[in-house]
């Protein structure tokens, strides 16, 4: 097990390096720089030029990259060009909101898709299965940002049930933790719902196929032949086997889940990394952008690794030292 981990960690480093290399050069190829944000008739171009020099934009791009990398190795992610804030602090401030939203949406999706998939697979080709399939496909096809808007229109503007955006009510800044958590949950409902609707389809479908496939296996028939109840069959014998493909899919879906939540954060002004990153693209706040990409990639890679480890844990057939292809 450790051996596998060790080997995988060795791959992660060059991958992250690749990620930074690609994003840095694409980013630098984009016209404009953070200083152009200052454009205003009362601002002189000499001042803007001076700031550019102070920030090192006059250096060749590869030198800027090497400098950035050097600082990174020393554990310094730099300072935001726009706010002068240490980048690490900026990211850490945003990380909880992003993780809260993505992890809770993941949990909700799993909680919903598991029973749905089981029902569909068990009752395959019935009316129940067909309608669940159509609905989950619908969820997959709806543009999530539009769905977000529609939810705002319906739940916030028309029914006035939920806030349109934000994270927590500012007036609660010194309320109890419980009250804060409640308020955050209340704000999180709509973004969560939006992500969940889009996320259900894929997993339900995989689950369904998994169930159908597993239920046709000999060992299920054999277990049934031993008089084991349907409930036990589904929830003991089939379940653990279904989890295998699901874990892989989850690992592969992680990028789209994280990436997808960024646009949702944007729509709902959710103070997560996505919002920070999208802003940074438009403001050309390179240090923040680089760090956002780095963190996201890291999360994605780690997510895949966790999926692999879970897989190895759940599936006894994968023994120590043997890597899954």
């Amino acid at each position, binding site marked *: 097990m450790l051996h596998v981990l060790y080997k995988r960690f060795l791959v992660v480093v060059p991958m992250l390096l690749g990620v930074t290399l690609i994003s840095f050069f694409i980013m630098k190829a984009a016209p404009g720089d953070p200083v152009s944000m200052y454009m205003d008739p009362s601002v002189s171009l000499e001042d803007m030029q001076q700031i550019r020099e102070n920030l090192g934009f006059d250096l060749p791009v590869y030198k800027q990259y090497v400098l950035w990398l050097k600082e990174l190795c020393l554990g310094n992610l730099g300072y935001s060009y726009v706010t002068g804030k240490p980048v690490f602090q900026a990211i850490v401030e945003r990380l909880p909101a992003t993780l809260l939203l993505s992890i809770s949406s993941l949990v909700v999706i799993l909680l919903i898709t598991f029973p749905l998939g089981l029902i569909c697979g068990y009752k395959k080709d019935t009316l129940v299965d067909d309608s669940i399939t159509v609905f989950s496909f619908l969820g997959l096809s709806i543009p999530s940002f539009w769905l977000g808007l529609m939810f705002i229109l319906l739940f916030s503007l028309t029914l006035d049930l939920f806030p349109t955006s934000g994270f927590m009510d500012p007036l609660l800044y010194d309320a109890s933790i419980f009250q804060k958590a409640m308020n955050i949950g209340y704000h999180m409902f709509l973004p969560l719902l939006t992500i969940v609707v889009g996320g259900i389809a894929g997993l339900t479908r995989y689950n369904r196929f998994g169930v159908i496939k597993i239920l046709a296996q000999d*060992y299920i028939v054999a277990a049934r032949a*031993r*008089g084991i109840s349907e409930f036990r069959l589904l929830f*003991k*014998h089939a379940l653990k086997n279904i989890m295998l493909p699901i874990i892989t899919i989850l690992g592969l879906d992680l990028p789209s889940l994280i990436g997808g939540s960024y646009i949702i954060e944007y729509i709902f002004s959710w103070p997560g990394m996505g919002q920070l990153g999208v802003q940074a693209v438009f403001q050309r706040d390179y240090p923040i952008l680089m760090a956002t990409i780095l963190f996201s990639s890291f999360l994605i890679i780690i997510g895949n690794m966790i999926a692999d480890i879970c897989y190895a844990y759940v599936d006894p057939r994968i023994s120590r030292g043997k890597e899954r292809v």
Partner: protein
Amino acid sequence: MLSIRNLDVEFHSDQSRVHAVKGISYELSEGQTLGIVGESGSGKSVSSLSILKLLPSTARVSGEVFWKGTDLIKETEAAMRLVRGAQIGYIFQNPLSALNPVFTVANQMVETICLHSDATKEEALEEAIELLDKVKIENPRKRIHDYPHQFSLGMCQRIMIAMTLSMKPDLLIADEPTASLDVTTQKEILELMDSLKEEYQMSMILISHDLGVVAERCDEVAVMYLGEIVEMGTPKDIFGSPKEAYTKILIDAIPKIRF
């Protein structure tokens, strides 16, 4: 003990309809062994699976299956659960795929034993180890905690047999139990089954495509072809004077060693 009348199985799907078993009938009395032979797809497995109502939902089954006086076809799923395993055991062709790969042998055996008796988990484990010992698994106390994929095919079949025997069924349906094994293992498994049958005094339905296997140990043989029983009788009758052309072909197919 078991009496099958006009058993008929059809598979329906969107496009097609397959008539797998076309109204077969046979009887089996206590302690007897019935052999069913025929080529693949002749309906041997389907007919025996339908006794336990283990066919997928696309199958339409009609006819009567009397087991100890009740018609299993009309039984509820809950009642069937009491019949399956406890009264009629079933051994599958491919032992590896018949064992759930993600649970240890101990887990699956204990589950089965507990299901059909009041034994505690510890007692069940002891019983399972004993049974494994009986089916000649070496070092069962240790190996019982292994996963199925860590055993050879022959061993898996022994485990399957042990698991089936743990429920002490009155009837054992062995669905080509040796088809996926190599020749020496085949022989060992068949011998094991013979001795266990004696010990537990079970009736047995032995399904095989190999007439040779069936001939030695059956009281009666049914030959199936395209979903029908084309000939039935004692092995002596069948071998001595096969009436159907198909039976003759089957007999000719038994390898004979010529010098």
